[in-house]
């Protein structure tokens, strides 16, 4: 699984102080089909927030509403307490890194980066100084006089970033900027982008459909599904404590256990464990890596551990780990992730801790 790059400096205003950006009950529909329903979201000063969702979830529309290319049907957006959504895009202190970079083909790299400063009619020497500073920041000084058509995709991506950051926006929007890069470059850019964000201290709103990317880079992830926020939390929180079945499945890999709670005991097929939930049907998310080989087979389940037997149906080699498809003796199918070096065969004894079976809702509350 992806590793989170720990922030060197924690985002300043996680709580208490006024958020940099407040999205309040924003709704948008194209024709009759709703794209966003009552989205409320706050972005703190210096925060790296990722809007994560599948295609068609409305994530790009939300970004375009913040940038000003679309207008919401209802709701409002405030930046530092002032209405942002009433301003035209060119008056917002927000800059965007576009999905396909949108570099001006008739301008050189240098002219592209200096575009925002030139239209703002800054003095020539200041433009020059800030452009070369921005080019140095993305390590593209050597390409200052090249045309966009003559540099690689990764380089264009850096220029798009420099072109946006040189204006010192309050907020930087990034619309799947890494999606066109190949896997290696992509991983490298994830790290660079994250450390760059820490360096400049500007809030980033990053849109992606790639959950691994979201986990690696973000302070918080806003998971969007069919125009509604499913969960907004830190990557660790959202992975460890998914709020809904969708969140659990979309972020990482999981087993969903459908069961019944009665008198503080959850039952799923032949498995049972103690829970602090009210009676009724319940759904649990159990991560494959939280299922392990049973240390001392007791044959049943006690309070601290749930044990069961099963057989390997399918085995997928992932390098350091293996993903096993297990059929339990009672017919339940489970995914189990184990370290490859601990690989076993035949009749298996497995267990998990009840604490790792996280109760999740079927879906986010609608309406």
């Amino acid at each position, binding site marked *: 699984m992806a590793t989170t790059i720990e922030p060197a400096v924690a985002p300043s205003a996680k709580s208490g102080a006024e958020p940099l950006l407040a999205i309040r009950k924003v709704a948008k529909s194209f024709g009759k089909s709703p794209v966003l329903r009552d989205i409320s979201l706050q972005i703190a000063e210096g925060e790296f927030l990722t809007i994560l969702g599948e295609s068609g979830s409305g994530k790009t529309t939300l970004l375009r509403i913040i*940038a*000003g*290319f679309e207008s919401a049907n209802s709701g409002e957006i405030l930046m530092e307490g002032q209405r942002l959504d009433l301003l*035209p*895009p*060119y*008056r917002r202190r*927000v*800059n*965007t890194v*576009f*999905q*396909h970079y*949108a*570099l*001006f*083909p*008739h301008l050189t790299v240098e002219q592209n980066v200096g*575009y*925002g400063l030139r*239209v*703002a009619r800054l003095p020539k020497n200041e433009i020059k100084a800030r452009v070369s500073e921005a080019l140095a920041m993305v390590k593209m000084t050597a390409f200052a006089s090249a*045309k966009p*058509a003559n540099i690689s995709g990764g380089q264009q991506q850096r220029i798009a970033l420099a*072109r*946006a950051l040189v*204006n010192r926006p309050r907020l930087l929007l990034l619309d799947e900027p890494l999606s066109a890069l190949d896997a290696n470059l992509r991983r490298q850019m994830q790290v660079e982008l994250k450390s760059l964000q820490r360096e400049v201290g500007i809030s980033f709103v990053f849109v992606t459909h790639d959950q691994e990317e979201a986990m690696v880079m973000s302070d918080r992830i806003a998971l969007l599904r069919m125009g509604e926020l499913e969960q907004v939390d830190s990557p660790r929180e959202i992975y460890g404590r998914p709020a809904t079945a969708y969140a659990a499945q979309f972020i990482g890999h999981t087993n969903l256990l459908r069961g019944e709670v009665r008198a503080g005991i959850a039952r799923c097929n032949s498995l049972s464990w103690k829970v602090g939930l009210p009676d009724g049907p319940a759904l649990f998310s159990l991560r494959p890596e939280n299922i392990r080989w049973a240390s001392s087979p007791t044959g049943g389940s006690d309070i601290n551990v749930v044990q069961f037997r099963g057989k390997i149906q399918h085995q997928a080699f992932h390098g350091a780990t293996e993903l096993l498809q297990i059929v339990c003796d009672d017919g339940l199918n489970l995914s189990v992730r184990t370290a490859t070096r601990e690989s076993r065969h035949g009749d298996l004894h497995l267990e998990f801790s009840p604490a790792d079976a996280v109760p999740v809702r079927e879906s986010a509350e609608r309406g």
Partner: protein
Amino acid sequence: MFSRAYRAAITLPPLLWVGLFLLVPYALLLCYSFWSVSPSQAIVRAWTLDNYRELFRVNVYLQTLFRSMWIAARVMIFSLLLGYPLAYYLSFYAGARKDLFYQLVIIPLWVSYLVRAYAWKTILGSDGVLNTLLQYVHLTKHPLEFLLYSPFAVVLTLTHIYTPFAILPIYASLEHIPRNLVEASQDLGASPLQTFWRVILPLSIPGVLAGATFAFVLSLGDFLAPLLLGGPGGIMISNIVVSLFGAAYNWPLGAAISLSMLLLVLALLLLSEKVEKKWSFR
């Protein structure tokens, strides 16, 4: 992949076409331009440079050529001034009516050139629609004579006829501008006007050049509009060529003038292509 016979069979017709209807006539034209006419009006097939000397010696030829270029230049400028805003509106603001407006630009091209030229005759004449109207509302007492049979009438008519030829390439180049560039410009703080000057106009230069070239070259070689509406002051170089090949029966001189025009136009096309290359980025 294909057999030799098949390739020969498909390349032969176009080759024959180009050969018979383009290369042979041009070769004949070239020959004629170096021949002469005897006093008894017979073609003398002996090489001479007299026709080209005549072209530069007799003032009326060069004067008419310059007048033609001046008329063509005005047509070009007016076509661009009219065509660019329309193409811009069509591409950026017409929305769902885009196709309708596009058809409206094209439809005049289906009407015979002659009909459109004659239409202007009925509008601009002394008893024409415009003069009648002006007198009816008492703006003028007598018909305005400069409206018809003047370079003005020729420029007006040619502008009407050739503006679609300017609109179409401009429209095409505007349609090719990725809209995210316009968004990027606004995102970086450029007002709509700044975006137009700094992004849209520069990226549409290839279309403007193509449109300008169409309007200029087509007008330069026109002979019907000046014939019908130009009067004595609105004669263009093609009218002289027509009369040299017709009534005057001096094919060699006509051929020399035609070839000079052709070279001029070719030079313009090459120039425009060169500039266009400098301004295209895809």
